[in-house]
């Protein structure tokens, strides 16, 4: 499994309130949530994002509320992978559970800039910055997590077992 696309880059402590503001939480429809994804931090994001693109951020990505609507909105916006120096723990669980691939890799978070073309190999954990011709070694997903992601989430994974 691979991800490949253009990078949207953010800083430290991107919280779930800016990923999907609570004023839109009266909906739980992924497509509708996606139209407001990152709205309060980057109004251009949803206009520019293409299927397969990646988000790269610094420390503590996804901090704050437990709303699963946050990774759902990111995934429904077409993002194929989020790479960060660290993730907030509830966001981390939620992302895996809904089948959004995420990788902790401080070196990649530092060595990738907005607009870079990046490719991720989930089997090996290798992150390649195609624009800068550099590679980083992230933690590969254990097999069961790869299966959860391939099944598009924990529920399907449980049902398939």
């Amino acid at each position, binding site marked *: 499994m691979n991800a490949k696309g253009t990078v949207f880059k953010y800083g430290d402590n991107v*919280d779930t*309130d*800016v990923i999907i503001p609570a004023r839109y939480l*009266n909906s*739980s429809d992924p497509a509708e949530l996606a139209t407001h994804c990152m709205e309060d931090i980057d109004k251009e994001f949803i206009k520019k994002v293409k299927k397969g693109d990646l988000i790269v951020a610094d420390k503590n990505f996804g901090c704050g509320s*437990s709303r699963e609507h946050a990774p759902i909105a990111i995934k429904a916006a077409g993002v194929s992978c989020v790479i960060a120096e660290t993730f907030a723990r509830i966001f981390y669980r*939620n992302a895996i559970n809904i089948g959004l691939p995420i990788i902790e890799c401080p070196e990649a978070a530092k060595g990738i800039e907005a607009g870079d073309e990046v490719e991720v190999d989930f089997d090996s954990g290798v992150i390649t910055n195609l624009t800068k011709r550099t590679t980083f070694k992230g933690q590969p997903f254990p097999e069961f997590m790869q299966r959860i992601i391939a099944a598009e989430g*924990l529920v*399907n994974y449980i*049902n398939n077992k």
Partner: protein
Amino acid sequence: MGMTMTQKILAKAAGLERVEAGQLIEARLDLVLGNDITSPVAIKEMEKMKVDGVFDKDKIALVPDHFVPNKDIKSAEHCKCVREFARRNDITNYFEVGEMGIEHALLPEKGLTVPGDVIIGADSHTCTYGALGAFSTGVGSTDMAAGMATGKAWFKVPSAIRFKLVGRPSKWVSGKDVILHIIGMIGVDGALYKSMEFVGEGVANLSMDDRFTIANMAIEAGGKNGIFPVDELTRSYLEEHAARGYEIFEADEDAVYDEEYTIDLSTLRPTVSFPHLPENTHTIDEIREMDDIVIDQVVIGSCTNGRLDDLRIAAEVLKDRHIKKGMRCIIIPATQKIYMQAMEEGLLKTFIEAGAVVSTPTCGPCLGGYMGILAEGERCVSTTNRNFVGRMGHVNSEIYLASPAVAAASAVTGIISCPCEL
């Protein structure tokens, strides 16, 4: 090597002699919680699972509290989804408008959270019940769905940071100031993935409501849970509230901690978190040296600070005073019981005479839902828990997090103030 308090609770729930930090375990759950925002997503997920129903109708709590009484048609649909699921599955602890409260104030009050419990909730402030010596942590909707279906959840056993509290806080310093001080010290990811264990002789000088406030905001330091030892005060609280028996756990004497801090409560000052992160803290003395911070609104309430102690202190400040002309002050008792007690003690009369409005229990403005949304450029002093960009309204509005004492004093002066200055 000994285990921390959290590790001992998790070991028992996993049926293991011992666990260590980093170990993956599957634990049985004593309670699974959801609200009107997270439950509909969980219900949808659970319905996709090939299961007959919930694992135990008595061990699930559904509390519509974020957007109730329904703020619009879409929220009404969400609440309807939760209500119908509760009815279909005969859920014992479903709390309708009229009996509900903000979930993390309501469940301890109803005696549904007791020491030694393992609790997951699809709400990040589920960590509140650590005040009672329980392991409780926030999860997402899918984890909630799996918890409702199976009564189990997997956890990575956390390591811990130990906060040794000594001394007695001075007048106008509360649990809110303690936790804001700690978050200012270690940062919003200072306890990422870890337990925050609060110990020491100073714990005895904190009321139960102070402890709920402190445990509640463990997540604001990135913590997996916050937890207090069970002492005399906890026992007397439980005597009044607990709906079932409980087991008390204590950390081993040779438990290992990643870090240890000693905090002298007597040296703490009223503390305020500036926009847009809870770690941007300043003491009231530092604020006095700055230009006046003129505010438009005050909110006193939420799962962090909507309890009786909080309302009493706000009333003490507002008694025989008036909200500054042109300011709005919104006060939200966290549960129906607190609302009633506040009425019986005359607190509501004090608030209304001071020019504040009093609302039925709701999370409302804390997360920018309704009941006090901010316009562009407006500033709010709030006893809530997050001051992120756009959290309470317009993306160019500002939230200053503070204690009920500071919030009430600021409502009187119209600038960020300490009651000691009135």
